[in-house]
């Protein structure tokens, strides 16, 4: 039963969800899973990925599309956004004269500025998402109710979230500065945007998740909407064979023990909504996304 204040109900009020976490924990899988849930619930859902490998496309069973918006299921669309292209588009948009625009695009100042300026690319991606949400979509494509961003893994997870504010602080005027300020305000508005952190039940991902939650609180005065512990070994049965009797069981036992103690550490440090998802014997792809979305739905509706 879905209750008024279930986590799922809360998530469906948001316009932007940023999915973040350490590399290899299943961010793209869970971005797809969340997308499936929202689309099934009747919301026009856009998934955005920045990684050029276009993993989201693979997970949803469509070939890489190089930046086109692809419909993968009713109300569910996916797009790869290349930050550099957005910045170049911005230059073309502001400079009406072609020869000047191409001069700017070719100039080393532009190249190094856009490559090196901290936070600029991230702010540009969020800027593009904001435009999508405001109805600037290609002809025939509906305005999304919600955009889910599969944020790239970085050493410091908070850097994606803090990027826009950083740019806004440094660039106080001009179109880039205005865009960054607008994005920063949007990301701070917890009625409109939220963060979902993905981890596994292992030491390093849990450690990074706790550090991310901490720096979100300190630097951004924000907290994630939800933490998802992914790829957990199954819970242990009541009957436990003696150690050494069954090596397969022993490995299951010790890996699940690690999951349990790390989940406990996560729970104590986080104190917020936590969903748990199992490792499933299915290769990454639409079948896995479908199965996991049923698991996640159950987790989110019961609340934790």
């Amino acid at each position: 039963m879905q209750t008024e204040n279930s986590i799922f109900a809360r998530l469906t009020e948001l316009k932007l969800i940023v999915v973040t976490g350490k590399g290899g924990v299943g961010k793209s899988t869970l971005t797809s899973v969340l997308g499936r849930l929202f689309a099934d619930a009747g919301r026009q859902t856009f998934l955005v990925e920045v990684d050029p490998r276009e993993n989201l496309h693979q997970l949803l069973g469509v070939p890489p599309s190089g930046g086109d918006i692809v419909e993968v299921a009713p109300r569910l669309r996916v797009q790869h956004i290349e930050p550099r292209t957005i910045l170049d588009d911005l230059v073309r948009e502001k400079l009406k004269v072609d020869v000047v625009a191409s001069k700017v695009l070719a100039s080393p100042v532009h190249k190094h500025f856009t490559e090196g300026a901290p936070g600029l690319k991230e702010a540009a991606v969020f800027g593009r998402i904001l435009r999508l949400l405001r109805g600037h979509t290609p002809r025939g494509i509906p305005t999304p109710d919600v955009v889910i961003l599969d944020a790239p893994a970085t050493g410091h997870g908070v850097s994606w979230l803090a990027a826009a504010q950083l740019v806004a602080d440094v660039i106080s005027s001009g179109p880039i500065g205005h865009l960054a300020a607008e994005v920063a305000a949007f990301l701070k508005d917890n009625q409109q945007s939220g963060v979902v952190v993905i981890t596994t039940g292992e030491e390093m991902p849990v450690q990074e998740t706790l550090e991310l939650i901490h720096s979100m609180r300190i630097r951004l005065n924000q907290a994630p909407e939800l933490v998802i512990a992914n790829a957990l070994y199954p819970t242990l049965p009541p009957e436990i064979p003696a150690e050494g009797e069954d090596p397969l069981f022993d490995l299951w036992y010790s890996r699940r023990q690690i999951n349990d103690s790390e989940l406990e550490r996560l729970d104590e440090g986080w104190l917020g909504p936590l969903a748990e998802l199992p490792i499933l014997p299915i290769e990454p792809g639409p079948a896995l996304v479908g199965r996991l979305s049923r698991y996640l739905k159950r987790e989110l509706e019961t609340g934790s």
Partner: protein
Amino acid sequence: MNPSDHPLVIVVGAGGVGKTTLAAALALNQAQHGDDTLVMTFDPSLRLKDTLGIHEGEESDEVKVADYDDGSLTASLLDARRTFDRLIDRYAPDEEARRRILTNRFYDHLSGSLAGVLEYMASERLFEISQSGRFGRIVLDTPPTRQALDFLGAPERIVGFLESGALRIALKPWFDARGRFRATAKFGIIGRNVESFFDRMVGLELLRDMAEFFQAFAPLFDGFRERALEVQELLRSSDTLFMLVSAPGPQRVADTLFFARRLKEAGYNLGPVVVNRLHPHLGNDSKAGLPTVGSDQDGRRLLQWLAHRDAQGAAHLRDLLGKSHPVVELELRPDEPTDVQALAQLGDQLRKGIEDNLG
């Protein structure tokens, strides 16, 4: 191909594959075989940090972990900001230049978040220590990066940046003595358009900050540039061997292969490829077909399925790379190896795996 034949071993791979643990295990093993070994690491788990005795913000950044009759292990935790500060201390021509850089508000952003700075700092520090000749062997763990090759590209990017026109433009006196923007005619009409465009796009304030930063940094650039080139030379020399670590499973093969190719194409010396943390074949499971899993709650069957999947991935990688590189498979253990004894065991397995697979 054998890390034991190279004074410098660099452990690379995507985030979360176990680079740090393997770097520590390899270094410990080298120490036990008689080398004075240093392991330089970025982001160890809390327990591994305890084992190595390294912690952030300590006075000394090198800690002696183990001393054998012959050989020893020292660990060092890399900190980008501290290395950056040290670099400026060394290259800044005088106290005034140093102060101007450290107080520029760009410096804070740059030292923390500029793409490649952490990576560059790692190779910088590596060069410094390797030149000192204090260690017979150095094992370097690499930072988690989005694109795992960022680390290697960093010195070249810095040189590229220093040689590009960006610096010359930034160093032009854009502002007059009263801090007002000075339009220049050097670039003709297009040049003025470009400049006025940047002015409109990002505002004068940012340009002023950047110009000031680059001007403050200018005296350092020559030393920096020279050093970046030397670092690059060291990374490509025959003394240096790369060990590539991959997670198991068929879906990782493409990434690992891509990484291996990029390394070789760029002229780096790729040695062993380690497939880490494979689910082992245990019990009476047959290696013939893929086991079917009845219930999601059946952990035994799940582990068999995972063992089968991981073996397929490793076999595929061996087909593709096994002829030219030792492909070493390391099994998932009941617990992560963090104490000295477990690291030593893992180090032995790694050594044996490499020796067994050397053609």
